């Protein structure tokens, strides 16, 4: 009966089922949450929770945990690792932590925060095999990736040739399968490609010098394709002009351009800048919040920044090239990749006494607090671009504890504090809302029905926290974490290593696209199409991983 578990008298926060702090028992059998049995078997393993807080396992919808750019960052930053060494004993395997953690440390630390699933948001199809190999070596969590489209020459040529939407959809479906991806992301639509042609900026309606198409066309084509294919997660959009003062107008225009199409705007904090004030840098959080509040087709994650050293890793070569001037320490890598996309890795230190950084911090928090619906806003730092994911407990405290937030606000650059409306916002997130934005909502957005829930039939991914007035302490060290019914963390420490599955969306496509791609690869690429594609059996090659297919139905 060891697989039959009773979690007795927990205070349950389960937004999927509308349960808000009710004290009751949860029963788990064979990895699933089950109904209360008629007879309670005294032999079942019982955990007396005595009113401790119970949520589903956390889900990070946007965290850079695997792939070429992550590995460049790891290789580049031994000094960052040396400041946070992880010895065997602390975890079952040695590694390193902080901004560019090893795969082992990333998996273990996510679990130790109560998370059970992580999604790599910027996998290049040409680099998909490596991204999956890295994620396969990331223990404890389930994973999946969003494959980047919209800068690859095949797509841009198809768009220029005015191929019909059906054709684009076939290509998107083929790419999902070839890269074994769960969703589609676009990064600086067309801009990474334009940078290869020495274009230094590309606004929403600006024409790509070579292809003559605009980011607007890329966005509309891809977001419609994702919707029509029936992929659960809408197009994941890293828009134009990341980090550019005044990009607020582009972001608002992007939201308008989508015109009701489902879309997820990612790390919006980096896209929410006005040009007002003495520093010509101001917060656009209120305007963006208003648009998101009004448009139920939109969801977003924040990409909150935290003060301190980190490393920025992005596919957006155009913007990373500009940002490289601010690299700290002074080193960085850029890369044009395989007629597919690119990457830029720039270490960076956010400083609370720097006006721009301080206001970035405030803008992120404003977005969290001004957007009403926690089902459409997800808690992220765009790990590690805004901050390492290990800062989530601190971020949760900032959201839940107004006086703490205001204390922090008083320590940042005074002009930034004055320029922000943060101090006037009273809102404090409730535990129910935190459970929504870190569990229920990401699961729903990704189409993972049996995640993020404590209802009967859900996977028994469960995190138990000791209630503590200091929410940072509370969320940093869960008392118990179960993954599919297995106890994996006790008192904030890993007690069992498990290996997760990889989720992918399987959409059907017309084989004609495959023939076109054969010709394309033979004519232009330096690898064959058959080698570009990652095959199902590769997920079992190290006897650790597995692949979970989600068949999606085309409209």
């Amino acid at each position, binding site marked *: 009966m060891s697989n039959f578990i009773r979690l007795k008298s927990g205070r349950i926060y389960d937004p999927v089922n509308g349960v808000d702090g009710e004290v009751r028992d949860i029963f788990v059998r064979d990895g699933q949450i089950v109904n209360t049995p008629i007879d309670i078997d005294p032999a079942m393993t019982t955990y007396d929770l005595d009113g401790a807080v119970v949520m589903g396992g956390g889900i990070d919808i946007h965290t850079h945990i695997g792939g070429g750019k992550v590995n460049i960052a790891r290789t580049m930053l031994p000094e960052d690792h040396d400041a946070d060494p992880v010895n065997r004993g602390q975890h079952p395997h040695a590694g390193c932590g902080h901004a*560019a953690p090893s795969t082992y440390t990333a998996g273990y630390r996510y679990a130790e925060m109560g998370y059970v699933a992580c999604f790599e948001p910027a996998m290049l199809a040409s680099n998909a095999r490596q991204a999956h190999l890295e994620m396969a070596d990331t223990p404890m969590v389930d994973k999946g990736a969003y494959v980047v489209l919209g800068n690859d020459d095949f797509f841009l040529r198809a768009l220029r040739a005015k191929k019909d939407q059906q054709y684009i959809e076939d290509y998107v479906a083929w790419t999902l399968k070839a890269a074994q991806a769960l969703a589609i992301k676009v990064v600086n639509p067309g801009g990474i490609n334009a940078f*290869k042609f020495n274009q230094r900026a590309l606004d929403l309606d600006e024409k790509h010098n070579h292809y003559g198409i605009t980011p607007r066309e890329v966005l509309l084509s891809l977001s419609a394709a994702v919707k029509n294919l029936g992929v659960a997660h809408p197009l994941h959009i890293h828009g134009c002009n990341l980090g550019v003062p005044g990009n607020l107008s582009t972001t608002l225009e992007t939201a308008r351009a989508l015109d009701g199409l489902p879309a997820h705007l990612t790390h919006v904090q980096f896209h929410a800048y006005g040009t007002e004030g003495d520093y010509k840098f101001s917060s656009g959080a209120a305007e963006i919040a208003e648009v998101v509040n009004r448009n139920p087709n939109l969801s977003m994650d924040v990409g909150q920044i935290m003060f301190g050293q980190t490393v920025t890793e992005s596919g957006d070569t155009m913007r990373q090239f500009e940002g490289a001037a601010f690299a700290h320490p002074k*080193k960085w890598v850029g890369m*044009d990749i395989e007629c597919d996309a690119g990457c830029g890795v720039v270490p960076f230190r956010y400083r609370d006494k720097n006006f721009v950084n301080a206001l970035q911090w405030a803008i992120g928090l404003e977005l969290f607090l001004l957007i009403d619906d926690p089902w459409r806003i997800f808690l992220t730092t765009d790990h590690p671009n805004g901050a390492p994911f290990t800062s989530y407990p601190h971020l949760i405290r900032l959201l839940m504890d107004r006086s703490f937030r205001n204390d922090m606000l008083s320590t940042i650059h005074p002009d930034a504090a004055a320029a922000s409306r943060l101090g006037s916002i009273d809102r404090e997130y409730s535990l129910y809302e935190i459970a929504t934005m870190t569990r229920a909502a990401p699961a729903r957005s990704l189409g993972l029905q049996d995640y993020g829930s404590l209802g009967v039939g859900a996977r028994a991914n469960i995190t138990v926290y000791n209630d503590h007035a200091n929410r940072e302490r509370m969320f940093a060290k869960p008392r118990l974490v179960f993954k599919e019914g297995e106890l994996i963390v006790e008192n904030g420490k890993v007690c069992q290593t498990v290996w997760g599955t990889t989720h992918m969306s399987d959409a059907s496509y017309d084989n004609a696209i495959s023939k076109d791609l054969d010709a394309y690869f033979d004519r232009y690429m330096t690898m064959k199409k058959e080698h570009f594609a990652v095959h199902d059996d590769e997920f079992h090659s190290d006897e650790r991983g597995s692949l979970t297919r989600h068949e999606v139905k085309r409209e």
Partner: protein
Amino acid sequence: MQHKASEAPTQSPRLKNAVCPFCSLLCDDLVLTPNADGSFKTAAGACHNASKAYLRAPSAPAPTLNGNPATFDDAFAALAKLIKRSSRPHFGGLATDVNGMRQIIRCAERSNASLDHAHGEIMAATTELLQSRGYYATTLSEVRNRCDLALIFDVDFAARYTNFLKRCTRPKQSLSGPIAKRRETLFIGSNERSPFDGGDKKELSIDVRRGEIDDFALLLLGALRRKTGTGALAKKAQEVVAKIRDAAYVTLVWAPGQVSESPLALGWTLADVVHEINATGRGALLTLGGDDGGQTAQNVSAWTTGYPNRIAFNRGSIDYAPKLNATRRLLEHQAIDALVWVDSFGRGLKIPPGNVPTVVIGRQKPHRPHDIYIPVGVPTIDHDADLVRTDSSVTLRGRALRDSELPSVAKVFSEVMARL
């Protein structure tokens, strides 16, 4: 099996699109015909290194212990015993695939071993370049389709990377149509190394002596910064800079393992040149290197531990000390008490001299008998294998081409760990 010449030749199946593991270009378009002895004949288009390597028949020798034939079980047990007894084992060579490297690292963590790849010295230099300044890089398909000016710094294509020109600078078609037509490739290096015979006006050589490549790169940098030097070399540099200013996408190609000067110094200058080009135009660096699984070892080490090549596990912690953990140095200073040398591609990587118990896990039986020899299959020929390409952006999976009884490196280390 004896091949009888008198028999009517049977139609051997041709194997298409095989992934070649014998240099880090990882050409994946090889057409192979199996020979009766288990080796393969390559079709036209394969380079001479690949043709030779695929012709090597599997000899399937048994493991040996102190020169005497032994079973695999005995060999695994002996290796486990040696590692257990050793207080400071070292795993060198590391010429293997992703799964092999994964198991090597797991075994190293359990046994307090240090790690260094056969090309560790060169890889340490390029890693230092990355860790101290970084650079703007590019990949093979980008060069093929985007690059209209390729500057090749003294790469010895006769020795390695032979098919680079065919795959990247010579295709007549490119995604950006006119680029392939106007592309110029300049070989900057000694005339004897130049792959160009002067027959193609778009393929030119600039004769720069070995040892002066770095000087020439510095002159390029100076000319880009509008500093005019004097002398014949400076004049050549100014001519190249004129071409750079006209180009849409410049690629600097170098092979740090083949240069006579310090790879770090030359790499630094080339990275500076690229940086200067990118101030107003577009340029990128392409590094050819990381052969024999080097690029694979670097990447697997980086993701599983955070650190690239040349780490040591030390009672639960990881010491990243690229200068200290070099195989040659550890042997010279007798800082290790066992050497496990992994060489699965069969290129006969030279084991640095030393006087410690030595184990060879390899494709070919070494000439000198070692304490333990364990034969293994060749990745992508005897078993499925993932390898990382020279540009580090593409990982290819090659599928086994023949039935083999030889274990993979991954299998050897997992068997050993089961006995630790």
